[in-house]
């Protein structure tokens, strides 16, 4: 076969593979949107508030997508993910204090944690330290490689906001954090609605989904 035809065939095969992958990614993302819509419906009887919450979650998903597109869907880092909150929520950098070692996240881990941080951030904007002009969130993480299994502990600590009341009903955010993110990463997520500010503590297992470096 003349080489230009061989090249054409090869290019067509590569394109078909690429289209298959794209299709797979789009269909999966639609299923994630379906999952988010259904979970959101549970907590919102009123269509206006349902829409507002759903839209915010779609924006979180889009933020995760942006981060992953930058690396060709190789994953992202915990610090890049946290920094994306600053632009999404239009924050002054001083109001989100970040500290921790370099942690790499797989694409699936990035999507789940991005949704989780967006829930916390939305809550901070509505009821927490970001609802006024002075409060801050300190987000720190620490690896405990000697634990069995090795762990990553993430702390989201809100200070300087209005007095906190524990919500009467567990919404999507709480469910996502406690029932999805905890089990997904072989760990636990604890939310403490203390009067002086919310603290969210995530204990996640370090493995190929979340790793140092």
């Amino acid at each position: 076969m003349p080489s230009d035809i061989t090249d054409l065939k090869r290019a067509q095969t590569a394109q078909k593979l690429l289209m298959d992958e794209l299709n797979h990614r789009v269909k999966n993302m639609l299923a994630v949107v379906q999952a988010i819509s259904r979970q959101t419906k549970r907590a919102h009887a009123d269509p206006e508030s349902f829409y507002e919450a759903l839209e915010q979650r779609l924006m979180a998903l889009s933020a995760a997508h942006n981060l992953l597109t930058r690396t060709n869907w190789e994953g992202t880092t915990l610090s890049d993910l946290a920094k994306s909150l600053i632009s999404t929520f239009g924050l002054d950098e001083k109001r989100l204090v970040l500290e921790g070692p370099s942690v790499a996240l797989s694409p699936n881990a990035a999507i789940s944690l991005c949704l989780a941080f967006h829930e916390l951030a939305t809550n901070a904007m509505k009821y927490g330290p970001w609802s006024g002009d002075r409060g801050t969130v300190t987000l720190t993480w620490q690896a405990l490689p000697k634990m069995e299994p090795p762990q990553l502990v993430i702390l989201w600590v809100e200070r300087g906001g209005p007095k906190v009341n524990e919500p009467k009903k567990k919404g999507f955010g709480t469910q996502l954090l406690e029932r999805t993110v905890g089990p997904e990463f072989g760990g636990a997520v604890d939310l403490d609605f203390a009067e002086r500010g919310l603290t969210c503590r995530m204990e996640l297992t370090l493995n190929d989904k979340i790793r140092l470096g």
Partner: protein
Amino acid sequence: MSMAVLIIEDEAMIARLVADFLEDLGHQVHGMAASVEEALAVLAPDKPKPDVAILDLNLGGEPADPVAHRLREVEIPFLIATGYGEDRLDRSGLHEPAIYKPYSQAALGRALADLNSRSPAA
């Protein structure tokens, strides 16, 4: 008939959705596995067996073939749930019934009923 269903799916939000679907359909969630390794651990010989399984073909970038193989070995009927198209499935050489993402609760209910009626154990 109510069945104990093992969900093998790497995307946590989707696994949660499928669990909700199953509960609404009157089935039980036997367990969830997000990787080939986790799935094989749940399907170890000393563990209680699910009635059926729902298997995502791609688990965190890894092909789910070893899990499909084990499910056949221990004779657990399963449904392939995938975001890939039909022609890709044909090429993968798997002959189990498939359901394509995203799918509705009703579609899952029908697929599980079909699976149950064709399974020799039923």
